[in-house]
């Protein structure tokens, strides 16, 4: 019962978030600011995760595909497919749920308990839309870019392993990453990134917006935001994979 109440409250908040903004110009400025705080500031962590992820996948593939009957270039192929299909969208989204989600929930939650949201309401501002909509739009626009970046760096991480270790031959790796390339997989990864971006920002915004009490509650709201958005990512990963790939 409580679950349905939660979903109902979330949908009600979303209806407020997507109601007509007071002034589009102000929102445009806020979207640019959020792009910097949510998107640009996440490039570093995405790059670090991706390079190590790509490197580790290549080593594991090399170990698991060690057979005279399996061509070595398939290691590169498998690395690319893993990175594109799952790691650069889902795993990176899970990491960002922790970084961006907790930051959004604690920012909005602190605004709630320090009456900043009440102050906006008194001014006649639709606080839900003013605070959450720019975050949703900027993340939906920026996360696909982070996914592309992660894919490139992830595949690059595999290249570094192939180049500087004796796990496999670098030429075979390069053949592998270009072998049998399905461009729809990129579309699939980008769609997932956009959906996950929406889930992370809206769910975290929801928990922050309804935070009550003191700083402890803000901490709890932040934890709930990360857990719930991570679960939502996993559920929607399954749904989108079923819808788009089968």
């Amino acid at each position: 019962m409580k679950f349905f109440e939660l979903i109902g409250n979330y949908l009600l908040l979303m209806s407020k978030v997507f109601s007509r903004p007071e002034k589009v110009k102000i929102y445009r400025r806020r979207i640019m600011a959020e792009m910097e705080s949510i998107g640009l500031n996440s490039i570093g962590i995405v790059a670090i995760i991706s390079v190590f992820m790509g490197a580790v996948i290549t080593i594991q593939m090399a170990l698991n595909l060690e057979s005279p009957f399996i061509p070595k270039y398939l290691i590169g192929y498998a690395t690319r497919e893993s990175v594109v299909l799952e790691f650069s969208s889902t795993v990176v989204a899970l990491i960002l749920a922790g970084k961006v989600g907790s930051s959004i929930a604690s920012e909005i939650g602190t605004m709630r308990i320090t009456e900043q949201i009440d102050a906006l309401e008194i001014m006649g501002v639709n606080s839900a839309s003013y605070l959450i909509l720019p975050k949703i739009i900027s993340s939906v626009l920026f996360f696909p870019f982070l996914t592309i970046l992660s894919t490139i760096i992830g595949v690059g991480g595999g290249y570094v392993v192939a180049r500087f270790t004796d796990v496999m031959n670098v030429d075979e790796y390069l053949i592998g990453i270009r072998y049998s390339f399905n461009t729809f997989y990129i579309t699939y990864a980008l769609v997932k990134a956009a959906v996950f971006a929406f889930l992370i920002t809206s769910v975290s915004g929801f928990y922050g917006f309804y935070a009550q009490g003191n700083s402890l509650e803000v901490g709890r709201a932040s934890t709930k935001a990360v857990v719930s958005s991570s679960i939502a990512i996993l559920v929607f990963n399954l749904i989108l994979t079923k819808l788009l790939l089968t």
Partner: protein
Amino acid sequence: MIHVEHLYKSFEGRTVLKDITTTFDTGKTNLIIGQSGSGKTVLLKSLVGLHEADSGSIFYDDVCYSSLNFKEKKAVRQHVGMIFQGGALLDSSTVVENVKLPLDLFTEMSNSEKLDRVHFCLNRVNILDADDLYPSELSGGMIKRVAIARAIVMNPRYLFCDEPNSGLDPKTSVVIDNLIREITEEYNMTTVVNTHDMNSVLEIGEKVLFIYEGQKWWEGTKHDILDSDNRELNDFVFASAMAKRAKRALR
């Protein structure tokens, strides 16, 4: 003028406000006083619509605010300014951005006109050379003064202040009190101040409403307070040593 009729408000079965009927006059500093937990803040937040009253009516001049729909309430709120206990300035915005925000959202003024208006309001509250500072870089008194500037930037007809002196030293409190009184007279606003600071009451209390256990217990002026024989009011008033001394001096 703000008129309240038979206002009730409860939270999870606990009645916090019981049958409040009163009038807050225009051009005067109207104070709501009472102990912590007596329902002052709930009354103030019900007046501005941050809490939905269970029953009763709130009139802003001739408009029955409590019967308006969301859109109509939003329009009325553009004539309302509020100063919160902690200032409630937006942490991620500078002083100028905080004060300018209502102008950005609700007026068609040019940027230079907006900045002129912002600086006029900041000068009025004696905030100079702090345009690009963030709230975290301001003192408690400065935060309150910037909050006052933000509250008056749209030329409101109604001003609400929730414990404007909380956390301030006595000298700064007097400055804030005087500022609120001067602004009220200057702009002929209906000002409602929620406080438990007896210095404020004796300084600016042109009309005082005493709330006790969620009910209107006493109403009068700052002069009437000192001569009142209402036991609960006296208990509250003379708990303050300052007020005791003031009473002795006056008698």
